[in-house]
Every structure is written in C-alpha cells, then in structure tokens.
C-alpha cells in the first residue's frame, strides 16, 4: 500500500500553513489601517438629528453600537450612535453618543454645510448670509453657496501668499539677522575691538529690520484683507455665528454631492493631507513635514550605513585572516543586531549629542552657547544612531553576498593577472551588489519603523522648518525634525482631542507603511536591474 504522506510532508504543510497565517495577518492589518484611515476622509452625509428632548444637532454618523445600560449589560436590540457634531466652540466636544431611542427624527437637508476651519475644528450649520465687501448676500439666494466657495478660494489664495511671505521673505530676514547677531556676539567674545566691522554688522541688521518692516506692513494688509469678508452661519439649534472667511479652509455640502463629486473631493482632501502643514497641535491639517523628515532621515542613514557596512563586510570576508578574532567580531556584529533600539538611542544621546555635538559646539558654534547647535537632538544624530542600529544588517547581508561569489570567478580574475584589490573591486563587488542592496532594503525597513531611539535624538512634535531650505548650506543637519512613527505616537497618546485625532493615527500609519513599501520597491527594482546586468558574471 502506497504511503499517502512522505516523512517530511507534515513539515512542509506546517510551514505552508504558517506562511498563510502570516500573510492573512499582514493583509488584515493593512485592511484595518486602510479602512479606518482612508475611510475617515470620505465626506459622509450630515444628518439633522432632532432629539425627543427638543435639542437638535447636525452630525455625521461615526459608529453604531448596542446600548449598554446602567446595569452594565448589553442590550440586544437598542442601538446608539456616535455623531461627529463639530462646533467645538459651541458644545465643548466634537463628538457625542446618542441613544437611538432618544432620536425623534433624522433628515438630510441638502443645504447643510460643513466648514473646515483653521481653528476649533469643523463647523456644522446652515448658511445664513455672506457679507462680501459690505454687501449682504442672503444664504437662501440662488448660487449663494457658489459665491461662498469662490470667496473661500480667494481667501485661501491670500492665505497662501501670507505663508509665502512668512516662510520665504521673513524666514530669510530672520536667518540673516540671527547670523549677524552671532557674528556680533563672536566679536565681543573674542574681545576684539573692531569698530569698523561692528558698525558694518549693525548696519546690516538695520537693513534687515527695515526689510522686515516692509514685509510686516504687507502682511498686515493681507491679514485685513483676509478678514474683510465674513460668513454668518446658523447652528442646528439656530445660534448665529459670524466667521471671517480667512479662517475657513473649505466649505462643502455632503448631502448635495453626488458620488463623483464626493470622490473628487476625497482626492483633493487626501492631497491636502499629504502636502499641508499640521494645524491645531497636529490634530488637523496635513503631515507633510513628517513625511519629509522620515524620508530624509532614511536617505541620510542609507548614505552613512552603506559604505561602513560594505567596507566592514569586505574586510571581514576578503582581507581579514580567518581566525578566532574574526569569529569574535562576527559574533559581536550578530549580537549587535539584536540589541534593543532604545539602547542605541541612549548611546546616541551620550556619544553623539553630548559627546561629539558638545565638542562641535564648543569649537565652531561658541557664539551661540549656551543655546546648543549640534549639542542637542537633530536629524544628523538621529540618522547616525539609526545607521549604527542597522549596520549589522548590512554587514551580514553583504557577507552572505560575498560568500556566494563562486571561487572560480575570483581565481579566474587572479589568474589573468589582476591584483587582489582589482579582483575585489571589479569582479567580486559587482556580483555581490544585489546582496548589498538586500541588506539596504532590510536596513531601510527597520529604520523607517523605529521610533524609540529617535524620540531622544531629535524628533519633535512640531517642527515646521524643514531640514532642507533655501539658505546656505541648504541641508541643515542640526535641525530637529518630525517623523511619521513619532507622529503616530504623539497623535495616539498625547493629542488634546483624541477622538478627532484617531482617524489621523490610522492615516499616518497607512502612509508610513506606504513609504516603507515605496522605498523597498525602489531598492528592489534597482537590485533586479543589477542582477540582470551581472547575471553572466555570477555564473
């Protein structure tokens, strides 16, 4: 009788099963994050809820669950709903649970408006009137909402201009003044008396200050223009609220939008989320600085980790005399890969920040002390700490790659008269390149997800100044930065408005995963090209 099972079959099946479970879990995780995050931006219809006690709310349905009575037992038929009612300035909270048995009626009036504001969260209400240049347009007039949209669009243009002046021109001025001030301080610290130079510096500062006055006046003008037009809204209960249009990001009427319109709106909002700066202590607005910081940090880390990892691996595999010493080093490298990341963080703080950073400050940035320049957390130190954290991965992967280069290829090269260096450089390294890139991929994947060591080496809650800007030397390695991983932690555990921030936690998590995938795919594409290129040489 033939045996149904070969002796090893069970193991194959078990590993297959394990793989399946893992894939399902990854899929489930992605699905959860994607639905909770991506779904939150969809413009849900807004309902006018009238409760039996007479109070009314304009709210978007968030979730629905079975009522749990005061006895603590879940009811089996009564539900309650969680509404996003907005109007934080009116109600104190953005969200509210309402028992369905308390609701007298729900309708979905097409004229209900949601205003996304720069402060205080969303406003839900009805358009009463628009005050445009002193003339009043009643909200019931045909096309009034279109007028409102146009006016908001114009106000946003002014707002962008303000941002441009604040970040561009005034940023330049501040940078210049700070530089001159430090020069002045440097002069006085070296106790050089150089009146000519001193007055020259002072003159420059005055010049900057004059320029500042001009742009300040310009800003003042723009700000008054921003608040010139107003909109008057009525809340569900009929309370009036006057708001300057400059404080509104956008207005929309979800009940009046078709599916295509909603989809277009969704895309616009999504783009806003990834391209805007955060607002309101990070609970609103976008996450652009965090995306930028994460990508830049990973790139800096890759630039540092690759040469070090590859050179170390080359030495260990090709040049070092294989013996006890090399074996000990190898064991150490492998162990290093298992050290908890926070330990690297502490090392980074002690060695980079306080050690090297302190020395750099006391030599090159004396005039800025006691304010530390490099002696505090920054993107450079964070990248270096992560480079240390990931260097074992690169070493191990590269060594594997080097070991797999066939002996006969090396010997062929040597037989043709190439020196050892030439063989390594021209024959061995190209064949091992794909393996090195595998190491890099693993390193990137690990580094992007790390948060703990970053928290103490330079990541902050809010750093609107990007580490790259138009001021020489363009890349400011000493600056603190924002990071998606830390952003998730901050939104999740420290945000002042936990409920409003929750969808943003998922969105941010989704983007973080997306960025890891994009970085990895880029590396994989490069690796595959290299594989093809060197396919002939690697047997």
């Amino acid at each position, binding site marked *: 009788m033939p045996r149904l099972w070969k002796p090893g079959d069970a193991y194959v099946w078990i590993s297959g099963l394990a793989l399946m479970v893992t894939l399902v879990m990854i899929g489930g995780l992605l699905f959860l994050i994607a639905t909770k995050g991506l779904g939150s931006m969809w413009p849900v219809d807004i309902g006018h809820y009238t409760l039996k006690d007479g109070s009314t709310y304009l709210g978007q349905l968030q979730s629905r669950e079975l009522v*749990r009575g*005061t006895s*603590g037992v879940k009811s089996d038929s009564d539900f309650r709903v969680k509404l996003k009612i907005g109007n934080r300035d009116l109600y104190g909270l953005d969200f509210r649970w309402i028992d369905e048995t308390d609701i007298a009626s729900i309708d979905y009036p097409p004229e209900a408006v949601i205003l996304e504001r720069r402060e205080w969260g969303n406003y839900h209400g009805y358009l009463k009137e628009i005050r445009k240049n002193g003339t009043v347009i009643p909200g019931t007039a045909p096309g009034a909402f279109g007028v409102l949209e146009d006016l908001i669009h114009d106000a946003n243009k002014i707002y962008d201009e303000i941002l441009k002046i604040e970040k561009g021109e005034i940023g330049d001025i*501040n940078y210049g003044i700070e530089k001159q001030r430090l020069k002045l301080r440097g002069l006085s610290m070296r106790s050089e008396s150089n009146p000519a130079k001193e007055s020259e510096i002072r003159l420059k500062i005055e010049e900057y200050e004059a320029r500042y006055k001009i742009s300040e006046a310009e800003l003042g003008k723009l700000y008054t223009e921003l608040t010139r037009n107003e909109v008057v809204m009525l809340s569900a209960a009929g309370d009036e609220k006057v708001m300057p249009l400059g404080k509104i990001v956008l207005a929309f009427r979800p009940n009046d939008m078709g599916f295509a319109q909603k989809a277009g709106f969704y895309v616009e909002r999504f783009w806003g989320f990834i391209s805007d700066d955060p607002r309101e202590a990070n609970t609103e607005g976008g996450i652009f600085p965090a995306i930028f910081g994460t990508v830049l940090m990973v790139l800096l880390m890759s630039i540092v980790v690759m040469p070090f990892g590859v050179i170390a691996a080359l030495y260990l595999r090709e040049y070092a005399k294989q013996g006890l010493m090399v074996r000990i080093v190898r064991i150490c490298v492998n162990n290093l890969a298992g050290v908890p990341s926070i330990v690297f963080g502490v090392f980074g703080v002690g060695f980079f920040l306080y050690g090297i950073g302190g020395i750099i400050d006391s030599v090159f940035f004396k005039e800025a002390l006691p304010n530390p320049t490099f002696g505090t957390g920054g993107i450079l130190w964070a990248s270096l700490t992560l480079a240390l954290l990931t260097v074992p991965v690169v070493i191990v992967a590269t060594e594997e790659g080097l070991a797999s280069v066939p002996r006969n290829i090396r010997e062929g090269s040597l037989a043709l008269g190439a020196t050892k260096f030439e063989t390594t450089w021209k024959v061995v390294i190209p064949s091992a390149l794909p393996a090195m890139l595998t190491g890099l991929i693993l390193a990137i994947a690990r580094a992007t997800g790390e948060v703990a060591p970053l928290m103490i080496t330079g990541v*902050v*809650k809010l750093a609107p100044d990007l580490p790259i800007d138009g001021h020489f030397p363009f890349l400011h390695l000493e600056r603190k930065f924002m990071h998606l991983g830390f952003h998730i932690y901050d939104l999740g555990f*420290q945000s*002042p408005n936990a409920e409003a921030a929750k969808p943003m936690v998922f969105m941010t998590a989704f983007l973080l995963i997306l960025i890891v995938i994009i970085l990895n795919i880029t590396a994989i594409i490069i690796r595959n090209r290299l594989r093809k290129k060197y396919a002939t040489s690697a047997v």
Partner: protein
Amino acid sequence: MKNLSVTLSFTLFAIVCALALGFVAGAQTVKVDPAIPSYTKVPGVSGNIDSVGSDTMNNLMTFWCEGFAKFYPNVKCQIEGKGSSTAPPALIAGTSQFGPMSRMMKSKEVDAFEKVAGYKPTAIPTSIDALAVYVNKDNPTECLSIKQVDAIFSKNRKCGGGSDINIWGATGIGGDWANKPISVYGRNSASGTYGYFKKKALCKGDYKDTVKEQPGSSAVVQGVTEDLQGVGYSGIGYKTSGVKAIKLAKTVEKGCFEPNLENIVGKKYPLGRYLYLYVNKKPNEALDPLRLEFLKYILSRQGQEIVIKDGYLPLSAAKVSELRATIGAN
C-alpha cells in the same frame, strides 16, 4: 410704581435665569472674562521661544506659540513636553526660557535653581485645570469621595479610607457592576499630574502596583474609553465623548461637585490646580521683550481663549491683572 417693581422683578428673574443657565452649561461654554485686556502688538519682538516641561501643557504651549507667532511671524517655537520634572533642569541649564509645569516646583528644585541663579524662579499661573477622574461612559458611577478615590488608587490609603476598593460594587453601585473588578489607569512618574494626584487625592500615599502607567494624558483617557471597568485621572482638557468625568466630594457630607470653573474657583471641587509657567526673572529687572510679550499674550484675552480651546479653564480678570503687575506688564 407697580410697573417699576414688575420690571425690576422681571430683570432680577432674567439675571437669575442667566446665572442658572451659566451654571447648568458649566464647563462647556466657559467664556473669557471680558475685563481681561486684549493683546496688542508691539514692535521689536523676535527670536526663539524654547520651552521644556509639562506634558499636560504641551498642547497649550503649542497653541499659544502658534497664536503668538501670528502676531510676530519672526518668532519661532520649539516645544518639548516630556513631564513637569524636566522643566527645572532645563531652566537651570539655560536651554529653555519657559518651564511649563502642571505643579509647583518642589523646594528641592527651587533650591537647585537658586544655587545657580542666586534668586528664586518666578512662577506664573497661566490657567486652571481640573484634574478629573474619568470612568467609561457606560459606568453608572456619578460621584466618588476622595477617600474612595484614595482606596481605589492607593495601596496604603493615607487619606483614611477604610478598606481597599478593587471591585466596582465597593464604591456603592449595584447590579452587574457589583462584582466587576476595577482596572486602574494612571500617569508615569515624570508627570506633574502624577505628583499632584498623589499629593491631593492619595494624601501622599503610594500608588497601587496594579495602576497601568500611561505615557500621556490622552492615553489614560483612551485606556478608560476602551476599558469598560476602567478608571483613571487626567486633565479636564483631555475629555472625550467616550468617558465621563465624575463628580468628586472632599468628604461625603460636603457633597459632590462637578469639575467646572465655579466649583474650582469656589474651592468646592477638590482637584483644581493652576498650570504654571516658570521663568528665570531677575528681581527688580525687566524681562527681555520676547519673554515679556509672550507672557503678556498668555495673560490676554486671546491667550485665555486658547486656554478654553484646549479644554482648560481661564483665569479671572482680577488674577490676570495681579499677574500682569508681577511680570511688569503694565
């Protein structure tokens, strides 16, 4: 004459109604005292605002800084909030200009500052926080006395609570809840909230080992939101729709009070506190314009409106004018 008295009584009635409404609305619609002056811009303010300190005040500082930067676009802010205990060392080392703290400095910290600077740091109360005890929204508990709170959170019950409370039934609620265990959430020890709660609600006793220490105020609230049997403490600014801030009583006889402005100012609610901003101010010497203006901004109508936006409670006009005098703002 009759007409007049009718009008008078009507007016009185209207005032009483308005007051009563104000009380009912309570914490939800707090308004800034209109007597607090509005902030006006002055020339010559620029530089960096560096603040290191309280996690409770982290968002508040961020909001203030964002608002202040609207007046002075050339001011930049760097705000770190890892706990009140991190404020004094940073002030002493000079790496920060402002030390937000959710509790007063301890005498040890003041001494350490004095040793370096030669004078005491200046504390400026910026806003009022009610430390609320949160339970899940489905928890029927309405009110707890400090003794009960102590018995829930503390292992040695220094406030004199009789026996340990570890099931909800022991707080006096019945039904299904009677046998449900209490799961306790709290803050980590670097936090000023941790220290304040220990001092005021635990009578300096020790926390139970079963308290789940959370890394942030918001995390406590979220823990209680998800955990039906949870109870935790956190600033009133972190309230969400998933939790209930219960009333507290100093003693059972004195009655229960909601965490709102009236009850805190009237010292009826036991866990009201000021949120402080510490600065290094030489006595008899004016502050530099940046710090002075920032403090003036906080002690202005706009600054106090931000306090409300973040969910905390604003100062009274009298307190503000007293404080403005101490910093030399008038």
